[in-house]
């Protein structure tokens, strides 16, 4: 309670890892750490589900439901009757989040 960020959608399959360490390079929160034979999932709760690790893993050892953690966009999507999970996700041309339109949210300014 009072911490909605303990669990994430991140899944790691160490048996697939080839130890290329790309995930340790792209993760901004040190979720992965270098290990002997494969990288270690060091801080899973720090994952912000940006999806960089999974996208840059050449052997699909990482899975995550990536998206932007922006309440403004998600609530806006729900109010417009759209899907909260896909409205602000990567690649959506109609996404309001981070949009270039002046009237859109200020969200993502820090990202």
């Amino acid at each position, binding site marked *: 309670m009072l911490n909605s960020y303990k669990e994430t959608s991140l899944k790691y399959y160490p048996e697939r890892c080839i130890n290329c360490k790309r995930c340790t390079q792209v993760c901004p*929160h040190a979720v992965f750490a270098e290990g002997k034979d494969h990288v270690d999932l060091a801080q899973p709760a720090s994952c912000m589900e940006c999806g960089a690790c999974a996208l840059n893993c050449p052997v699909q050892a990482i899975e995550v439901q990536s998206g932007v953690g922006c309440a403004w*966009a998600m609530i806006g999507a729900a109010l417009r009757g759209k899907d909260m999970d896909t409205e602000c996700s990567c690649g959506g041309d109609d996404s309001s989040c981070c949009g270039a339109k002046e009237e859109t949210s*200020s969200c993502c300014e820090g990202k």
Partner: protein
Amino acid sequence: MDKKDTTGSSCSCMPHPETLSCGCRKDNPTASGILVTDSSITFANRLDHFLARWGWKRESHRIEPGLYCLGNPTADSPVFASANYTLSFDALRSALAGMDAWILVLDTKGINVWCAAGKGTFGTEELVRRIAVTGLATVVSHRKIIVPQLGAPGISWPEVMRKSKFLVEYGPVRAKDLPEYLKTHTATPAMRRVEFPLKERLVLTPVEFVHTALSMFVVTVVLWFLAGSVAALAAISAVFAGTVLFPALLPYIPTQDFSTKGLILGLIIALPFAAAFGTNPSLPGWADVAGAATALLIIPAVIAYFALNFTGCTTFTSRSGVKKEIFRYVPAMTLMAGTGIVIGIALGISQLTGVL
């Protein structure tokens, strides 16, 4: 503020892979396709950054996508990728002061690297396309492009390699670390980490405040005439606390959830107003209690909502976590604010009808 005229012009020399040295001049643009930039940050650039931070004409803070030469790059010079958002591009070019380099600016629709990566505009497809459109493979002799680490959510390096033959090297999070990074092409753990210090939180507050300014003004004026100056001040205080004070105090407020942090801050902000409304000697006791309850219900709910919306500005909130927060707390916020508004309206009607 369009920077086509301030930071870029077309290169006067045609690139040649063997002997390429740009040596182009800003005052002699031609249509060869390579644009020119430098590392200086002018007053116009700083004004543009200031306006961007205040949310002024948000979509206009962009530069022309394409390949830029910085200094006198050769075919062996490094290539850096950036977004066509002025703050991103200016951070990169200023960090590369004194260097000769190529900068490949992707068309991210005027959005910064990290947001554009999340949206997909700073992505594999655009990077591969931009490499092809600019003829980068004929400009440089190597096949490596340094991409900001925060571009990684949009880039798949195996796909870029497969489609363009260019190897993506992820540079540090912050452009200012590039000079140190380029000595060994190895990032320290600190260079790889995203932080969210006070300065970065405060720099977001103007645009947050501006976005609510009009609504706040209307509510303040309405409350001034209907409920008096203290109620109007309460509205201003709630908006200021939610958009400025909350970001500033973010790590110091107890609990992890933004909504509960906002409720705590809101309660503190509401207390003096509750005391003011609850100790009016000219009103009966029940009206004092109702007045105090109005402040204690509405102000924390409003600030908690602002706090929840700040998740999109942070550098660490996950989508699944934010979604949980929405379902956990928004109904409570709605109930609190709704109850407070009903009580407030009832008090107002009581005064207008002479009950009080």
